[in-house]
């Protein structure tokens, strides 16, 4: 039996509130935690069969042109080498998120430096690596290649659908009491999940099994099948543990298709792990952005106009473009509005989703601009934002499903001790350290994605949750188990969640912060259906049934579930889909950031001393894992503010800093003991759990709080991120 729900209307009844097991929302340890801390959780490359061969990818060393030839025969003659794959089905780059079909497959046509062109397969990894390093490519490079977005010869696309304008922004700028008109730039970023992309392929006849490191299995299966030209039902993908994703593992990637082709040809299992350098060059990056922001405010600081125009980049034929302005249409008031979006078509590693595409960089620039407006108007930055919270979505004229920005701002200001901040920059000094406080708002759109899950109540009265959903560190194992435990009245130890197998009901996958709420809703619906079946057995009304500690309670009857089931088991599927609710209201999550930095007056080095994040995302399903997601997001923000930056060679666009020694992720010492507050909220428009996504909220605007604090400390306004030492000291 399947219980289905399309979200056309709000769900007014907070069903989880009726439940009595008392586990939902609790800060429960991850059920898979023991496996992870003992090294027993198997990731993609960790169940290598006996005769497994190893493949290493070969990259192009030009940015545009043709691969005329490869010295296959020399390489295939090296010790242990079994095969050099140059199949036309190899992928140029990973599929974009939720593509569901193969990305461009053109290994002899080179579009960017670092593009995969071949796979060298050998009996051992060492042999394959040697072969891949020795291979000589005959390349025909095009004489003219545009690799920089600011190259005057770059083709600039201005998609009609992505421009919007209401009122007259120019007039608002002329009439405003206070204005800001500035350019902000953010560099390219990488997801840098700690587990490099890896696939282990093996065939049984014409059926392929792939152990992979992927986020969205139902899409990945379709993409892989399409790339290989086989039926979807011949492909099974397993990804029970995924060593981080952050968008980089949304779509099927070159190593998976290469491993599958090689394995088929050789008749043995083949494992291909990208090197870290491969991951930098072959996996989709976050586009660099150049943003012009205009703010026009009346003398009370109320916005009468907002303009936000962005230039991003991608390869000529890639559909994705970083949705920089995504939050700008609804975050603040202002009747005169202008949104602009342009895409430079250049030959760099293609761009795609990296944690919170859009808001991560767009809101960061907007929140620096707001700080500038606070400065010119003399209005406190928190107060300025409070004055600009709109009553309804100012662009679409529809209500908000719920709105917590004001509460997040005031709660944060009080908890952080914001009133102690001196608005005059450069006034607090401790020896050679200049101290400053900064803040910013957080916002991220909320989504529901079609999702299915199956729940089985076994005859012993245990629950098994099954879906092809992934847990990429997000806490899926914990929250789905908690939902089933709560709905079916079971202790956590009596629930098992099985994930990451395309043989199980297809889920939303992990992406866009929608996983827990979408797939959680499917689990919730399946549990509702099981509750109905229990009621049938006990001939009672659903409202008269209480499930707790493995017992069904109706009136003064209390029966153990196993006894009630009497050897039978109950099973049900839940299925949810987005509906009209998306268009009737504006759904988003909100929050605030507060940061204290110390900037060294001699070196220009910035240290984040304290940081607070206050967030609301509807019902919190697990306070522990939700908090961790926020810590992770804010730390991405610290990286974005201070150190993270993809550097491309101006001549051929290649990524210069393609490893962890040169691309600087925040390390432990860069991150203070961040404080997180999760606000109570319910959003009845989101789904029956009344929960919203939280995986990305913590990065949206976080960097602005740090950069604004640097300004308060020093008076230096950094508009070109990251705020590295040279930029800070240059302004002191």
């Amino acid at each position: 039996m399947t219980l289905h729900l399309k979200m056309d209307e709000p769900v007014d009844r907070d069903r989880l509130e009726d439940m009595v097991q008392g586990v939902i929302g609790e800060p429960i340890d991850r059920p898979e935690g023991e496996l992870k801390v003992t090294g027993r959780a198997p990731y993609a490359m960790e169940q290598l069969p006996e005769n497994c061969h190893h493949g290493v990818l070969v990259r192009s060393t030009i940015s545009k042109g043709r691969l005329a030839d490869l010295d296959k025969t020399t390489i295939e003659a090296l010790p242990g080498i079994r095969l050099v794959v140059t199949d036309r089905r190899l992928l140029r780059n990973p599929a974009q998120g939720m593509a569901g079909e193969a990305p461009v497959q053109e290994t002899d046509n080179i579009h960017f430096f670092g593009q995969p062109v071949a796979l060298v397969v050998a009996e051992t990894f060492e042999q394959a690596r040697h072969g891949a390093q020795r291979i000589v490519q005959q390349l025909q490079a095009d004489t003219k290649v545009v690799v920089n977005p600011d190259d005057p010869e770059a083709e600039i696309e201005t998609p009609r659908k992505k421009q919007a304008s209401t009122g007259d922004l120019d007039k608002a700028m002329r009439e405003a009491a206070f204005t800001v008109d500035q350019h902000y730039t953010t560099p390219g970023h990488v997801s840098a999940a700690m587990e490099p992309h890896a696939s282990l392929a093996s065939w049984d006849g014409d059926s392929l099994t792939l152990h992979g490191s992927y986020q969205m299995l139902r899409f990945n299966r379709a993409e892989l099948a399409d790339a290989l030209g086989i039926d979807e039902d011949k492909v099974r993908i397993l990804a029970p543990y995924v060593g981080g994703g952050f968008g980089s593992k949304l779509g099927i990637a070159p190593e998976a298709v290469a491993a599958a082709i090689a394995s088929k040809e050789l008749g043995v299992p083949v494992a291909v792990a990208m090197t870290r350098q491969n991951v930098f060059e072959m996996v989709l990056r976050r586009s660099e952005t150049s943003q012009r922001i205009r703010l026009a405010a009346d003398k009370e600081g109320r916005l009468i106009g907002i303009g936000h125009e962005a230039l991003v980049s991608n390869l000529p034929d890639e559909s994705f473009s970083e949705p920089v302005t995504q939050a700008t249409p609804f975050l603040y008031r202002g009747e005169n509005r202008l949104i602009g979006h342009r895409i430079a078509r250049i030959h760099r590693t293609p761009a795609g989703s990296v944690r919170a595409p859009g808001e991560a960089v767009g809101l960061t620039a907007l929140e620096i601009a707001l700080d500038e407006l606070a400065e010119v108007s003399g209005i406190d930055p928190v107060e300025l934002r409070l004055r600009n919270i709109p009553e309804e979505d100012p662009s679409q004229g529809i209500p908000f499903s719920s709105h917590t920005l004001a509460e997040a701002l005031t709660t944060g200001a009080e908890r952080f001790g914001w009133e102690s901040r001196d608005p005059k920059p450069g006034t607090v000094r401790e020896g050679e350290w200049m101290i400053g406080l900064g803040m910013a708002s957080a916002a991220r759109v909320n989504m529901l994605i079609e999702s299915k899950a199956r729940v089985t109540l076994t005859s012993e009265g245990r629950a098994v949750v099954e879906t092809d959903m992934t847990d990429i560190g997000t806490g899926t194992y914990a929250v789905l188990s908690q939902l089933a435990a709560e709905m079916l009245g079971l202790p956590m130890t009596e629930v098992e969640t099985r994930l990451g197998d395309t043989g199980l009901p297809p889920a939303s996958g992990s992406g866009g912060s929608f996983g827990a709420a979408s797939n959680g809703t499917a689990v919730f619906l399946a549990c509702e259906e099981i509750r109905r079946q229990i009621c049938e057995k006990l001939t009672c009304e659903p409202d008269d049934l209480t499930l707790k500690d493995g017992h069904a309670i109706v009136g003064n009857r209390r029966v153990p579930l196993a006894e009630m089931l009497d050897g039978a088991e109950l099973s049900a599927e839940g299925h949810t889909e987005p509906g009209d609710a998306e268009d009737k209201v504006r759904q988003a999550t909100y929050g605030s950031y507060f940061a204290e930095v110390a900037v060294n007056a001699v070196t220009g080095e910035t240290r984040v001393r304290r940081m607070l994040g206050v967030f609301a995302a509807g019902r919190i399903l697990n306070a522990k894992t939700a908090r961790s997601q926020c810590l992770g997001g804010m730390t991405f923000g610290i990286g974005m503010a201070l150190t993270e930056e993809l550097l491309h060679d101006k001549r051929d666009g290649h990524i210069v800093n393609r490893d962890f020694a040169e691309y600087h992720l925040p390390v432990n010492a860069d991150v203070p003991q961040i404080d997180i507050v999760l606000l109570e909220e319910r959003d009845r428009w989101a789904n029956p759990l009344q929960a919203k996504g939280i995986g990305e909220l913590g990065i949206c605007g976080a960097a602005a709080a740090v950069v604004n604090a640097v300004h308060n400390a020093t008076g230096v306004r950094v508009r070109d991120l990251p705020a590295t030492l040279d930029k800070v000291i240059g302004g002191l």
Partner: protein
Amino acid sequence: MNAAGNPTAQTQLAINGRDYRLDADTRTTLLDALRTHLGLTGSKKGCDHGQCGACTVLVNGRRVNSCLTLACMHDGDEIVTIEGLGKPGQLSPLQEAFVRHDGFQCGYCTPGQICSATAMIEEIAAGWPSHVTDDGTGKPQLTVEEISERMSGNLCRCAAYPNIVDAILEAAGGKRA
């Protein structure tokens, strides 16, 4: 030489208290020997270049990036990997504290973090100074600052850093200040 004609080496390793005899290509790193040859996949490969710490293991009691050293250089060495520190149902105090404090999310950096922390606690106890130790001669204390500094060779992109510090503090009985 192996069948394909690559030079190999016989190496005797004592791993987690058990003897292993390895006959592998001399280019095999200690990390690949553990993961690919000996089935000890608890040690992770995040970069293969000594830049992330995911492959940290203990060699004769000291923490080492196992991707940066060849297996054949460790003949006779005693090695402890994450599998040797505890197992499900029998966690080490540090492993338990990592679970309780959510000192991880995806879990990929975690074995390296825990191996690294295990040795790091000993280093502090032995009085080894770090960059943040006051004058380089005083005895270092187990503080947030010392732990953060000494754990900075272990990257965590999920950014469980504050929880990792809390877990280590609790397991090692350190101070919050």
